[in-house]
């Protein structure tokens, strides 16, 4: 995926190349525009500049096709039906087991799941779309250490098997060091290569 001159009201002229199978981590203080950048890439906010997937501009995708290919996982998961399984387009049991769930989890009530469970399930829900690019906004923020390891492993496996590109926002320097091929930081709306 390549991003050329992407600007919104909070981020300025972002240029970024994200190779297939690459994991790039993004850090920066709160309010620096990390979430805004991810939202613009997923075409959820109006923006200037160009985002391309395999040389094909986002403009040439219909908006919902684009968001299926470029999946954004927001920091807070949202559910709108009572049953977990009703939110899924398909269930990949291997992935579910990898995060500590079973097929029975589909029958769970959303209201009974903890924040951490919901966050992991939201990741599975996004992966069910088989996105080519993953935009992750602090995907392990409310998870216990065991779950963090599982999530990192699942994302690494998915990235290698599907040759998916990952742009990962994380506040945790140790995590960035574990998962990232490359680290970037965003400050004052501008992107820079971290040392």
């Amino acid at each position, binding site marked *: 995926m390549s991003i050329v001159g992407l600007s919104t009201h909070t981020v300025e002229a972002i240029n970024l190349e994200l190779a297939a199978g690459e994991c790039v981590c993004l850090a920066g203080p709160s309010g620096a525009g990390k979430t805004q950048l991810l939202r613009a890439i*997923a*075409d*959820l*906010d*109006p923006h200037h500049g160009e985002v391309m997937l395999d040389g094909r501009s986002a403009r040439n995708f*219909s*908006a*919902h*096709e684009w*968001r*299926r290919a470029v*999946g*954004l*996982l*927001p920091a*807070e*998961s*949202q*559910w*709108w039906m009572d049953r977990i399984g009703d939110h899924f387009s398909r269930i990949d049991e291997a992935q579910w087991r990898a995060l500590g769930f079973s097929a029975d989890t589909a029958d769970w009530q959303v209201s009974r799941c903890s924040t951490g469970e919901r966050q992991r399930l939201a990741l599975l*829900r*996004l992966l069910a*779309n088989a996105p080519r690019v993953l935009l992750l906004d602090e995907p392990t923020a409310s998870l216990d250490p065991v779950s963090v390891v599982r999530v990192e492993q699942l994302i690494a496996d998915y990235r290698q098997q599907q040759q998916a590109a990952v742009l990962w926002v994380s506040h945790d320097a140790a995590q960035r060091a574990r998962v990232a091929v490359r680290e970037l930081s965003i400050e004052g709306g501008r992107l820079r290569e971290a040392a």
Partner: protein
Amino acid sequence: MNLISLSPVDLSLAALLVLALAGFSWWLRLGMERRLLVAALRTTVQLLLIGVILKALFEHVQLAWVTLTALVMLAIAGREVMARQQRRFAGWRGYGLGVFAMFVSAFAVALLALLVIIGNRPWYQPQYAIPLLGMLLGNTMNGIALGLDRLTTGAWQQRAVIETRLMLGQTANEAIADMRWEAMRVGMIPIVNAMAAAGVVSLPGMMTGQILAGAAPFEAVKYQILIMFLITAGTGFGTMVAVWRGASDLFDERERLRLERLVGGKS
């Protein structure tokens, strides 16, 4: 006609009741007395005004004047729809939405009734046309305002859910479907309830008026049934049109939720 004419003294007696209510509102610190009195004053002035206009219209039955009156009523109804929403579409988008929906529902239904069902000659006889349109506008206005209010408040409160659904690759149409369904239902519930309670709990206003004016009860009932059906159709279709268009106006051409198109909020 065996209608008993009301004297100014009769009206003043009724007005005293409203004044007494305003007094109690002040005493109980409900803070409603000002609004109550302003509304009562508006009722008086507006109704006197329409009385004058109707009198003039009845004396000069001309299509152009009837049309002009109808358009002014439509324009004011459009403003009223806007005023009743907590969060509404800004500018012409919001105004046009309500007016368009009422135009295709209340106007179309009124025209159908005048031309096909009542079949007066001329069909635009203001004695029928204006009250009919007035009742239709008044009720569709309610449904549309309720429906749109639910839609925009719902979208505002559940912004995160709608955007999550978009992030998962749903179309704008799918992402807003639940809220649209709910908004359409909310807009239609009052008129369905009114039909269910008509005659048992409440004697509808028009029928009461006709009976007071000396019409045979059964003739009045037939008119009331006609009006009920027309209002239901007008409100239902008007609400559907307004909510449908409103729901798609919440998104832009790239299926992004654009809540900045709404103005207003809790005050």
